Protein backbone atom coordinates (compact mmCIF):
# COMPACT_ATOMS: atom_id res chain seq x y z
CA UNK A 1 0.00 0.00 0.00
CA UNK A 2 1.43 3.40 -0.91
CA UNK A 3 0.79 6.46 1.15
CA UNK A 4 -0.96 9.20 -0.76
CA UNK A 5 0.92 12.46 -0.83
CA UNK A 6 -1.47 15.24 0.10
CA UNK A 7 -1.79 17.88 -2.61
CA UNK A 8 -1.39 21.54 -1.79
CA UNK A 9 -4.16 23.83 -3.06
CA UNK A 10 -1.77 26.49 -4.34
CA UNK A 11 -4.64 28.67 -5.54
CA UNK A 12 -5.94 28.83 -2.00
CA UNK A 13 -2.47 29.64 -0.68
CA UNK A 14 -1.92 32.36 -3.31
CA UNK A 15 -5.25 33.96 -2.48
CA UNK A 16 -3.91 34.67 1.01
CA UNK A 17 -1.07 36.82 -0.36
CA UNK A 18 -2.45 40.15 -1.56
CA UNK A 19 0.77 41.19 -3.29
CA UNK A 20 0.53 38.23 -5.67
CA UNK A 21 -2.47 39.79 -7.39
CA UNK A 22 -0.65 43.07 -8.08
CA UNK A 23 1.26 43.92 -11.24
CA UNK A 24 4.82 45.07 -11.95
CA UNK A 25 5.38 47.18 -15.08
CA UNK A 26 1.84 46.25 -16.13
CA UNK A 27 2.50 42.51 -15.91
CA UNK A 28 1.27 40.08 -13.26
CA UNK A 29 3.89 39.85 -10.53
CA UNK A 30 6.01 36.69 -10.69
CA UNK A 31 7.86 36.68 -7.40
CA UNK A 32 10.89 34.38 -7.42
CA UNK A 33 12.97 35.99 -4.69
CA UNK A 34 11.61 34.44 -1.52
CA UNK A 35 15.13 33.58 -0.34
CA UNK A 36 15.65 37.34 -0.01
CA UNK A 37 12.33 37.82 1.76
CA UNK A 38 9.00 36.05 1.57
CA UNK A 39 5.76 37.82 0.84
CA UNK A 40 3.29 38.23 3.67
CA UNK A 41 -0.09 36.55 4.03
CA UNK A 42 -3.15 38.66 4.78
CA UNK A 43 -3.28 37.20 8.30
CA UNK A 44 0.13 38.69 9.15
CA UNK A 45 -0.72 42.06 7.59
CA UNK A 46 -4.01 42.11 9.52
CA UNK A 47 -2.30 41.08 12.74
CA UNK A 48 0.16 43.98 12.54
CA UNK A 49 -2.65 46.41 11.77
CA UNK A 50 -4.75 45.16 14.67
CA UNK A 51 -1.81 45.39 17.02
CA UNK A 52 -1.07 48.99 16.11
CA UNK A 53 -4.74 49.99 15.93
CA UNK A 54 -5.98 48.44 19.15
CA UNK A 55 -3.28 46.72 21.20
CA UNK A 56 -0.13 48.84 21.17
CA UNK A 57 1.66 49.43 24.48
CA UNK A 58 5.14 48.93 25.82
CA UNK A 59 5.79 45.63 27.55
CA UNK A 60 7.08 44.69 31.02
CA UNK A 61 6.30 48.15 32.35
CA UNK A 62 2.72 49.28 32.54
CA UNK A 63 0.42 48.48 35.43
CA UNK A 64 -2.49 48.91 33.06
CA UNK A 65 -4.26 46.17 31.12
CA UNK A 66 -3.15 47.31 27.69
CA UNK A 67 0.51 46.87 28.62
CA UNK A 68 -0.11 43.60 30.39
CA UNK A 69 -1.91 42.31 27.29
CA UNK A 70 0.94 43.39 25.00
CA UNK A 71 3.37 41.61 27.31
CA UNK A 72 1.25 38.47 27.17
CA UNK A 73 1.20 38.57 23.35
CA UNK A 74 4.96 39.02 23.21
CA UNK A 75 5.44 36.08 25.56
CA UNK A 76 2.91 33.98 23.64
CA UNK A 77 4.97 34.50 20.49
CA UNK A 78 8.05 33.27 22.29
CA UNK A 79 6.17 30.18 23.42
CA UNK A 80 4.92 29.56 19.87
CA UNK A 81 8.47 29.83 18.53
CA UNK A 82 9.77 27.46 21.20
CA UNK A 83 7.21 24.90 20.03
CA UNK A 84 8.00 25.59 16.34
CA UNK A 85 11.69 24.70 16.75
CA UNK A 86 11.20 22.23 19.64
CA UNK A 87 13.22 24.28 22.12
CA UNK A 88 13.62 22.73 25.55
CA UNK A 89 12.42 25.91 27.20
CA UNK A 90 11.00 29.33 26.32
CA UNK A 91 13.96 30.84 28.18
CA UNK A 92 16.14 29.63 25.31
CA UNK A 93 14.34 31.78 22.73
CA UNK A 94 15.85 35.25 22.38
CA UNK A 95 14.24 37.85 20.14
CA UNK A 96 16.68 39.69 17.87
CA UNK A 97 16.43 41.82 14.74
CA UNK A 98 17.14 38.81 12.57
CA UNK A 99 19.64 36.10 11.75
CA UNK A 100 22.48 38.58 11.36
CA UNK A 101 21.96 40.04 14.81
CA UNK A 102 21.60 36.55 16.28
CA UNK A 103 25.01 35.52 14.93
CA UNK A 104 26.57 38.77 16.10
CA UNK A 105 25.10 38.23 19.56
CA UNK A 106 26.77 34.83 19.88
CA UNK A 107 30.03 36.05 18.32
CA UNK A 108 30.24 38.91 20.80
CA UNK A 109 28.62 37.59 23.98
CA UNK A 110 30.06 34.07 23.77
CA UNK A 111 33.10 34.69 21.58
CA UNK A 112 34.44 37.75 23.29
CA UNK A 113 34.32 36.06 26.69
CA UNK A 114 35.62 32.69 25.55
CA UNK A 115 38.06 32.94 22.65
CA UNK A 116 41.80 33.04 23.27
CA UNK A 117 44.73 33.71 20.98
CA UNK A 118 45.07 30.94 18.43
CA UNK A 119 41.56 29.55 18.94
CA UNK A 120 39.74 28.60 15.76
CA UNK A 121 36.28 29.18 14.40
CA UNK A 122 35.33 26.91 11.52
CA UNK A 123 32.77 28.11 8.98
CA UNK A 124 32.11 26.71 5.51
CA UNK A 125 32.92 28.15 2.11
CA UNK A 126 29.18 28.45 1.41
CA UNK A 127 28.32 30.76 4.30
CA UNK A 128 26.40 33.99 3.89
CA UNK A 129 28.55 36.99 4.82
CA UNK A 130 26.48 37.27 8.01
CA UNK A 131 27.92 33.96 9.20
CA UNK A 132 31.51 34.95 8.32
CA UNK A 133 32.02 38.61 9.17
CA UNK A 134 30.75 38.52 12.81
CA UNK A 135 33.31 35.74 13.45
CA UNK A 136 36.05 37.75 11.74
CA UNK A 137 35.25 40.72 13.97
CA UNK A 138 35.50 38.76 17.20
CA UNK A 139 38.50 36.80 15.90
CA UNK A 140 40.34 40.07 15.30
CA UNK A 141 39.45 41.23 18.82
CA UNK A 142 40.61 38.01 20.46
CA UNK A 143 43.47 36.86 18.23
CA UNK A 144 41.46 33.90 17.00
CA UNK A 145 41.39 32.50 13.48
CA UNK A 146 38.48 31.87 11.09
CA UNK A 147 38.85 28.87 8.79
CA UNK A 148 36.49 27.71 6.05
CA UNK A 149 35.62 24.10 5.27
CA UNK A 150 35.71 23.36 1.54
CA UNK A 151 32.75 22.86 -0.79
CA UNK A 152 32.81 20.33 -3.64
CA UNK A 153 31.89 20.98 -7.29
CA UNK A 154 28.26 20.10 -6.65
CA UNK A 155 28.10 22.74 -3.94
CA UNK A 156 28.05 20.25 -1.08
CA UNK A 157 30.05 20.53 2.10
CA UNK A 158 33.19 18.41 1.81
CA UNK A 159 32.79 16.46 5.05
CA UNK A 160 36.30 15.00 4.90
CA UNK A 161 37.76 18.46 4.41
CA UNK A 162 35.59 19.71 7.26
CA UNK A 163 36.77 16.91 9.53
CA UNK A 164 40.44 17.72 8.91
CA UNK A 165 39.84 21.32 10.00
CA UNK A 166 38.56 20.23 13.40
CA UNK A 167 41.21 20.19 16.08
CA UNK A 168 42.11 21.01 19.65
CA UNK A 169 41.82 24.73 18.97
CA UNK A 170 38.38 24.59 17.33
CA UNK A 171 35.94 26.40 19.62
CA UNK A 172 33.00 27.06 17.30
CA UNK A 173 31.60 25.58 14.12
CA UNK A 174 29.21 27.94 12.33
CA UNK A 175 27.35 26.35 9.46
CA UNK A 176 24.42 27.20 7.24
CA UNK A 177 21.50 24.76 7.26
CA UNK A 178 20.17 25.60 3.77
CA UNK A 179 22.43 27.64 1.50
CA UNK A 180 20.83 30.87 0.25
CA UNK A 181 23.05 30.90 -2.84
CA UNK A 182 22.88 27.24 -3.89
CA UNK A 183 19.97 25.60 -2.08
CA UNK A 184 22.28 22.95 -0.61
CA UNK A 185 20.95 21.30 2.54
CA UNK A 186 23.84 20.63 4.90
CA UNK A 187 23.96 17.53 7.14
CA UNK A 188 23.85 19.71 10.25
CA UNK A 189 23.19 16.80 12.59
CA UNK A 190 26.37 15.08 11.43
CA UNK A 191 28.27 18.38 11.54
CA UNK A 192 27.13 18.86 15.14
CA UNK A 193 28.26 15.37 16.12
CA UNK A 194 31.69 15.87 14.58
CA UNK A 195 32.09 19.33 16.09
CA UNK A 196 31.06 18.16 19.55
CA UNK A 197 33.44 15.22 19.34
CA UNK A 198 36.18 17.78 18.74
CA UNK A 199 35.02 19.80 21.73
CA UNK A 200 33.56 22.70 19.73
CA UNK A 201 30.17 24.36 19.90
CA UNK A 202 27.86 24.56 16.88
CA UNK A 203 25.82 27.45 15.53
CA UNK A 204 23.38 26.72 12.71
CA UNK A 205 22.27 29.55 10.41
CA UNK A 206 18.63 28.72 9.78
CA UNK A 207 17.71 31.86 7.83
CA UNK A 208 16.57 29.83 4.83
CA UNK A 209 15.77 26.49 6.41
CA UNK A 210 13.16 27.75 8.89
CA UNK A 211 10.70 28.29 6.03
CA UNK A 212 11.47 25.10 4.13
CA UNK A 213 12.57 22.32 6.49
CA UNK A 214 11.14 20.99 9.74
CA UNK A 215 13.25 22.47 12.54
CA UNK A 216 13.98 20.51 15.70
CA UNK A 217 16.94 22.08 17.47
CA UNK A 218 17.19 19.21 19.93
CA UNK A 219 17.29 16.64 17.17
CA UNK A 220 19.91 18.62 15.23
CA UNK A 221 21.95 18.72 18.40
CA UNK A 222 23.34 22.20 17.77
CA UNK A 223 24.07 24.75 20.50
CA UNK A 224 22.72 27.84 18.76
CA UNK A 225 20.17 28.24 15.96
CA UNK A 226 19.46 31.59 14.28
CA UNK A 227 16.64 32.62 11.96
CA UNK A 228 14.72 35.63 10.66
CA UNK A 229 11.00 36.39 10.71
CA UNK A 230 10.86 38.04 7.30
CA UNK A 231 12.01 34.94 5.41
CA UNK A 232 9.26 33.03 7.20
CA UNK A 233 6.22 35.07 6.07
CA UNK A 234 6.67 37.43 9.02
CA UNK A 235 7.71 41.07 9.40
CA UNK A 236 11.21 42.41 8.84
CA UNK A 237 13.21 43.46 11.89
CA UNK A 238 12.34 40.47 14.04
CA UNK A 239 14.33 37.27 14.37
CA UNK A 240 15.35 34.63 16.82
CA UNK A 241 18.39 33.24 18.50
CA UNK A 242 17.85 29.90 20.13
CA UNK A 243 20.63 28.75 22.46
CA UNK A 244 21.11 26.05 25.03
CA UNK A 245 20.04 27.41 28.39
CA UNK A 246 23.24 26.30 30.14
CA UNK A 247 25.33 28.25 27.58
CA UNK A 248 23.13 31.35 27.50
CA UNK A 249 23.20 31.41 31.31
CA UNK A 250 26.99 31.54 31.36
CA UNK A 251 27.28 34.15 28.59
CA UNK A 252 27.63 37.80 29.60
CA UNK A 253 25.05 40.24 28.24
CA UNK A 254 25.77 41.73 24.82
CA UNK A 255 23.89 45.00 24.87
CA UNK A 256 23.05 46.92 28.01
CA UNK A 257 19.90 48.87 28.66
CA UNK A 258 16.42 48.65 30.02
CA UNK A 259 14.72 45.28 30.50
CA UNK A 260 17.96 43.31 30.68
CA UNK A 261 18.87 44.28 34.24
CA UNK A 262 18.20 42.91 37.70
CA UNK A 263 19.18 45.96 39.70
CA UNK A 264 21.25 48.93 38.61
CA UNK A 265 23.54 50.97 40.80
CA UNK A 266 26.23 53.36 39.63
CA UNK A 267 28.79 51.03 41.23
CA UNK A 268 27.53 48.07 39.19
CA UNK A 269 24.49 46.18 38.00
CA UNK A 270 23.06 42.70 37.94
CA UNK A 271 21.41 41.02 35.00
CA UNK A 272 17.92 39.77 34.46
CA UNK A 273 17.45 36.03 34.00
CA UNK A 274 16.94 34.56 30.53
CA UNK A 275 15.67 35.52 28.07
CA UNK A 276 15.51 39.17 29.18
CA UNK A 277 19.29 39.29 29.74
CA UNK A 278 19.76 39.41 25.96
CA UNK A 279 16.85 41.71 25.11
CA UNK A 280 17.96 45.21 26.07
CA UNK A 281 15.60 48.05 25.23
CA UNK A 282 12.07 48.03 23.86
CA UNK A 283 11.92 45.16 21.40
CA UNK A 284 10.01 44.89 18.12
CA UNK A 285 6.80 43.90 19.87
CA UNK A 286 4.60 44.10 16.78
CA UNK A 287 7.21 42.09 14.91
CA UNK A 288 7.12 39.32 17.50
CA UNK A 289 3.32 39.30 17.43
CA UNK A 290 3.36 39.19 13.61
CA UNK A 291 5.90 36.37 13.61
CA UNK A 292 3.57 34.35 15.83
CA UNK A 293 0.85 34.69 13.19
CA UNK A 294 3.33 33.89 10.40
CA UNK A 295 4.31 30.65 12.11
CA UNK A 296 0.64 29.81 12.59
CA UNK A 297 0.14 30.38 8.86
CA UNK A 298 2.95 28.01 7.89
CA UNK A 299 2.06 25.43 10.51
CA UNK A 300 -1.57 25.59 9.38
CA UNK A 301 -0.63 24.13 6.00
CA UNK A 302 -0.19 20.42 5.49
CA UNK A 303 3.57 20.04 5.89
CA UNK A 304 3.77 16.96 3.67
CA UNK A 305 1.88 18.77 0.92
CA UNK A 306 4.11 21.85 1.20
CA UNK A 307 7.26 19.74 0.99
CA UNK A 308 5.92 17.82 -2.03
CA UNK A 309 4.91 21.06 -3.77
CA UNK A 310 8.29 22.73 -3.22
CA UNK A 311 10.11 19.60 -4.30
CA UNK A 312 8.06 19.45 -7.49
CA UNK A 313 8.72 23.14 -8.24
CA UNK A 314 12.47 22.79 -7.84
CA UNK A 315 12.58 19.61 -9.93
CA UNK A 316 10.50 21.27 -12.64
CA UNK A 317 12.69 24.40 -12.62
CA UNK A 318 15.82 22.30 -12.67
CA UNK A 319 14.56 20.53 -15.79
CA UNK A 320 12.98 23.57 -17.48
CA UNK A 321 15.76 26.11 -16.90
CA UNK A 322 18.59 23.58 -16.84
CA UNK A 323 17.72 22.37 -20.35
CA UNK A 324 18.04 25.84 -21.92
CA UNK A 325 21.20 25.94 -24.05
CA UNK A 326 23.93 28.03 -22.40
CA UNK A 327 22.49 27.70 -18.90
CA UNK A 328 24.83 26.38 -16.22
CA UNK A 329 23.25 25.39 -12.94
CA UNK A 330 25.36 26.36 -9.93
CA UNK A 331 24.80 24.01 -7.03
CA UNK A 332 23.69 20.50 -7.91
CA UNK A 333 23.73 18.98 -4.44
CA UNK A 334 21.83 15.74 -3.90
CA UNK A 335 20.07 17.30 -0.91
CA UNK A 336 18.69 20.59 -2.14
CA UNK A 337 15.70 22.87 -1.60
CA UNK A 338 13.99 26.01 -2.85
CA UNK A 339 16.87 27.70 -4.72
CA UNK A 340 17.90 27.57 -8.39
CA UNK A 341 21.16 29.41 -9.01
CA UNK A 342 22.40 29.65 -12.59
CA UNK A 343 24.36 31.53 -15.21
CA UNK A 344 23.49 32.07 -18.87
CA UNK A 345 26.30 32.16 -21.40
CA UNK A 346 26.62 35.63 -22.91
CA UNK A 347 24.08 37.18 -20.52
CA UNK A 348 25.29 38.83 -17.33
CA UNK A 349 22.97 38.11 -14.36
CA UNK A 350 22.18 41.82 -13.91
CA UNK A 351 21.12 42.19 -17.51
CA UNK A 352 18.98 39.08 -17.12
CA UNK A 353 17.47 40.62 -13.98
CA UNK A 354 16.58 43.80 -15.85
CA UNK A 355 15.03 41.95 -18.79
CA UNK A 356 12.99 39.74 -16.43
CA UNK A 357 11.90 42.72 -14.34
CA UNK A 358 10.42 44.36 -17.42
CA UNK A 359 8.11 41.33 -17.62
CA UNK A 360 7.20 41.50 -13.94
CA UNK A 361 9.54 38.68 -12.90
CA UNK A 362 11.59 39.25 -9.74
CA UNK A 363 14.81 37.30 -9.31
CA UNK A 364 18.04 38.04 -7.48
CA UNK A 365 21.19 38.74 -9.49
CA UNK A 366 24.54 39.10 -7.80
CA UNK A 367 26.85 37.44 -5.33
CA UNK A 368 24.05 36.66 -2.83
CA UNK A 369 26.25 37.91 0.04
CA UNK A 370 28.38 34.80 -0.47
CA UNK A 371 31.50 36.08 -2.22
CA UNK A 372 33.80 33.26 -1.00
CA UNK A 373 31.37 30.79 -2.56
CA UNK A 374 31.19 32.73 -5.84
CA UNK A 375 35.00 32.71 -5.95
CA UNK A 376 34.95 28.95 -5.32
CA UNK A 377 32.94 28.56 -8.54
CA UNK A 378 35.02 31.13 -10.45
CA UNK A 379 32.08 33.52 -10.68
CA UNK A 380 31.30 37.09 -9.72
CA UNK A 381 27.56 36.67 -9.81
CA UNK A 382 24.73 34.29 -10.60
CA UNK A 383 21.04 34.63 -11.27
CA UNK A 384 18.94 33.09 -8.52
CA UNK A 385 15.31 32.07 -8.58
CA UNK A 386 14.00 31.00 -5.20
CA UNK A 387 10.68 29.37 -4.52
CA UNK A 388 8.11 29.42 -1.80
CA UNK A 389 4.85 27.74 -1.06
CA UNK A 390 2.94 30.25 -3.23
CA UNK A 391 4.91 29.70 -6.45
CA UNK A 392 3.61 27.62 -9.34
CA UNK A 393 4.88 25.86 -12.44
CA UNK A 394 3.49 28.85 -14.36
CA UNK A 395 6.05 31.03 -12.56
CA UNK A 396 8.81 28.70 -13.73
CA UNK A 397 7.44 28.83 -17.29
CA UNK A 398 7.50 32.64 -17.15
CA UNK A 399 11.10 32.51 -15.97
CA UNK A 400 12.05 30.14 -18.81
CA UNK A 401 10.42 32.44 -21.37
CA UNK A 402 12.25 35.42 -19.85
CA UNK A 403 15.61 33.67 -20.01
CA UNK A 404 14.98 32.84 -23.67
CA UNK A 405 14.06 36.47 -24.34
CA UNK A 406 17.23 37.74 -22.63
CA UNK A 407 19.31 35.33 -24.69
CA UNK A 408 17.71 36.57 -27.93
CA UNK A 409 18.39 40.15 -26.91
CA UNK A 410 21.85 39.90 -25.39
CA UNK A 411 23.70 36.68 -26.21
Amino acid at each position, binding site marked *: MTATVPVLDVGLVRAQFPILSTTAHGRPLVYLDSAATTQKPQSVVDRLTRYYERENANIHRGVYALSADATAMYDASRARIARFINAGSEREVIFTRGTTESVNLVAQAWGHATLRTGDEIVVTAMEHHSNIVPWQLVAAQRGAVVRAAPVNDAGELDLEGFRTLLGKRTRMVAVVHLSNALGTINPVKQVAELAHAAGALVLVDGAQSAAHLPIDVQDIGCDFFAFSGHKLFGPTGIGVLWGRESLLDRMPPWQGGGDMIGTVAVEGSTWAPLPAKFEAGTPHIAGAVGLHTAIDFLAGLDQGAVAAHEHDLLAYANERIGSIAGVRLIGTAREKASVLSFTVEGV*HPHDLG*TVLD*ADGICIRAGHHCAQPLMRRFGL*VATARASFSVYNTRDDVDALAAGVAKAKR*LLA
Partner: protein
Amino acid sequence: MSSVSELYQSVILDHNRTPRNYGRLEGDARRARGYNPLCGDECTVWLKVEGDTLADVRFEGQGCAISKASASLMTMAVKGKPVAEVEALTERFHSLVTGRLTEAEQQALPARLQVFSNVAQFPVRVKCASMPWHTLKAALAGGDAPELVELK
Protein backbone atom coordinates in the same frame (compact mmCIF):
# COMPACT_ATOMS: atom_id res chain seq x y z
CA MET B 1 9.70 52.52 -17.34
CA SER B 2 11.10 52.36 -20.86
CA SER B 3 11.12 49.00 -22.54
CA VAL B 4 14.27 46.95 -22.26
CA SER B 5 14.89 47.31 -26.00
CA GLU B 6 15.31 51.06 -25.45
CA LEU B 7 17.87 50.35 -22.75
CA TYR B 8 19.76 47.72 -24.71
CA GLN B 9 20.21 49.64 -27.96
CA SER B 10 22.16 47.97 -30.74
CA VAL B 11 25.24 50.13 -30.10
CA ILE B 12 25.31 48.96 -26.47
CA LEU B 13 24.85 45.32 -27.47
CA ASP B 14 27.62 45.62 -30.05
CA HIS B 15 30.08 47.11 -27.57
CA ASN B 16 29.13 44.51 -24.97
CA ARG B 17 29.94 41.69 -27.38
CA THR B 18 33.00 43.38 -28.88
CA PRO B 19 34.40 45.95 -26.49
CA ARG B 20 36.86 48.43 -28.04
CA ASN B 21 40.17 49.44 -26.44
CA TYR B 22 39.97 46.31 -24.30
CA GLY B 23 43.21 45.34 -22.56
CA ARG B 24 46.04 46.92 -20.64
CA LEU B 25 48.50 49.71 -21.29
CA GLU B 26 52.07 48.79 -20.45
CA GLY B 27 54.83 51.03 -19.17
CA ASP B 28 54.16 54.12 -17.11
CA ALA B 29 50.41 54.20 -17.66
CA ARG B 30 48.21 55.47 -14.85
CA ARG B 31 45.79 52.90 -13.53
CA ALA B 32 42.68 52.84 -11.39
CA ARG B 33 40.31 50.08 -10.41
CA GLY B 34 36.62 50.57 -9.94
CA TYR B 35 34.56 48.14 -7.94
CA ASN B 36 30.91 47.97 -7.08
CA PRO B 37 30.67 46.03 -3.81
CA LEU B 38 26.91 45.67 -4.22
CA CYS B 39 27.20 43.49 -7.31
CA GLY B 40 30.90 42.56 -7.44
CA ASP B 41 31.40 44.10 -10.88
CA GLU B 42 34.79 45.61 -11.54
CA CYS B 43 36.58 47.70 -14.12
CA THR B 44 40.22 48.74 -14.46
CA VAL B 45 41.20 51.73 -16.59
CA TRP B 46 44.72 52.43 -17.87
CA LEU B 47 45.58 55.78 -19.42
CA LYS B 48 48.46 57.89 -20.65
CA VAL B 49 48.50 61.67 -20.56
CA GLU B 50 50.83 63.56 -22.87
CA GLY B 51 50.92 67.28 -22.16
CA ASP B 52 47.28 68.29 -21.76
CA THR B 53 45.96 65.43 -23.81
CA LEU B 54 44.59 62.00 -22.85
CA ALA B 55 46.78 60.24 -25.37
CA ASP B 56 45.65 56.66 -24.82
CA VAL B 57 43.16 54.75 -22.71
CA ARG B 58 42.25 51.08 -22.33
CA PHE B 59 40.18 49.04 -19.93
CA GLU B 60 39.50 45.55 -18.63
CA GLY B 61 36.63 44.43 -16.49
CA GLN B 62 33.97 42.00 -15.46
CA GLY B 63 30.48 43.25 -15.57
CA CYS B 64 27.11 43.53 -17.18
CA ALA B 65 26.36 44.69 -20.74
CA ILE B 66 25.70 48.24 -19.56
CA SER B 67 28.99 48.61 -17.71
CA LYS B 68 31.08 46.94 -20.40
CA ALA B 69 29.52 48.96 -23.23
CA SER B 70 29.83 52.12 -21.17
CA ALA B 71 33.56 51.52 -20.64
CA SER B 72 34.11 50.71 -24.30
CA LEU B 73 32.22 53.75 -25.58
CA MET B 74 33.89 55.93 -22.96
CA THR B 75 37.36 55.01 -24.20
CA MET B 76 36.32 55.94 -27.75
CA ALA B 77 34.83 59.24 -26.60
CA VAL B 78 37.84 60.41 -24.59
CA LYS B 79 40.86 59.05 -26.43
CA GLY B 80 42.95 61.90 -27.87
CA LYS B 81 40.87 64.59 -26.15
CA PRO B 82 42.23 67.41 -23.96
CA VAL B 83 42.10 66.38 -20.29
CA ALA B 84 39.90 69.38 -19.40
CA GLU B 85 37.39 68.30 -22.02
CA VAL B 86 37.42 64.73 -20.68
CA GLU B 87 36.68 66.02 -17.18
CA ALA B 88 33.77 68.11 -18.43
CA LEU B 89 32.45 65.16 -20.42
CA THR B 90 32.65 62.96 -17.30
CA GLU B 91 30.38 65.39 -15.44
CA ARG B 92 27.94 65.58 -18.35
CA PHE B 93 27.80 61.81 -18.70
CA HIS B 94 26.89 61.50 -15.04
CA SER B 95 24.13 64.07 -15.54
CA LEU B 96 22.92 62.13 -18.57
CA VAL B 97 22.50 58.78 -16.81
CA THR B 98 20.87 60.40 -13.80
CA GLY B 99 18.35 62.14 -16.04
CA ARG B 100 19.48 65.70 -15.40
CA LEU B 101 20.20 66.84 -18.99
CA THR B 102 17.73 68.67 -21.21
CA GLU B 103 16.96 67.30 -24.65
CA ALA B 104 19.24 69.93 -26.19
CA GLU B 105 22.08 69.12 -23.78
CA GLN B 106 21.73 65.44 -24.58
CA GLN B 107 21.99 66.13 -28.28
CA ALA B 108 25.17 68.16 -27.74
CA LEU B 109 26.87 65.00 -26.46
CA PRO B 110 28.78 62.67 -28.78
CA ALA B 111 26.20 60.43 -30.48
CA ARG B 112 27.75 57.26 -29.11
CA LEU B 113 27.15 58.46 -25.54
CA GLN B 114 23.55 59.51 -26.14
CA VAL B 115 22.56 55.82 -26.28
CA PHE B 116 22.84 55.79 -22.48
CA SER B 117 20.06 58.33 -21.97
CA ASN B 118 17.54 55.56 -21.18
CA VAL B 119 19.64 54.31 -18.27
CA ALA B 120 18.06 57.09 -16.23
CA GLN B 121 14.76 55.16 -16.49
CA PHE B 122 16.41 52.19 -14.75
CA PRO B 123 17.67 53.63 -11.45
CA VAL B 124 19.28 50.40 -10.26
CA ARG B 125 21.44 50.33 -13.39
CA VAL B 126 22.82 53.89 -13.20
CA LYS B 127 25.93 52.73 -11.33
CA CYS B 128 26.64 50.16 -14.03
CA ALA B 129 26.92 52.94 -16.62
CA SER B 130 28.75 55.43 -14.44
CA MET B 131 31.37 53.14 -12.85
CA PRO B 132 33.82 53.23 -15.80
CA TRP B 133 33.68 57.03 -15.77
CA HIS B 134 34.28 57.19 -12.01
CA THR B 135 37.26 54.93 -12.57
CA LEU B 136 38.56 57.11 -15.41
CA LYS B 137 38.29 60.14 -13.16
CA ALA B 138 40.26 58.35 -10.44
CA ALA B 139 42.95 57.32 -12.90
CA LEU B 140 43.28 60.91 -14.09
CA ALA B 141 43.50 62.22 -10.53
CA GLY B 142 45.57 59.43 -9.07
CA GLY B 143 48.80 59.82 -10.97
CA ASP B 144 50.83 56.66 -11.08
CA ALA B 145 49.41 55.06 -7.99
CA PRO B 146 46.56 52.61 -8.33
CA GLU B 147 43.45 53.91 -6.68
CA LEU B 148 40.42 52.03 -5.53
CA VAL B 149 37.06 53.57 -6.26
CA GLU B 150 34.50 52.18 -3.89
CA LEU B 151 31.01 52.91 -5.09
CA LYS B 152 28.26 52.86 -2.53
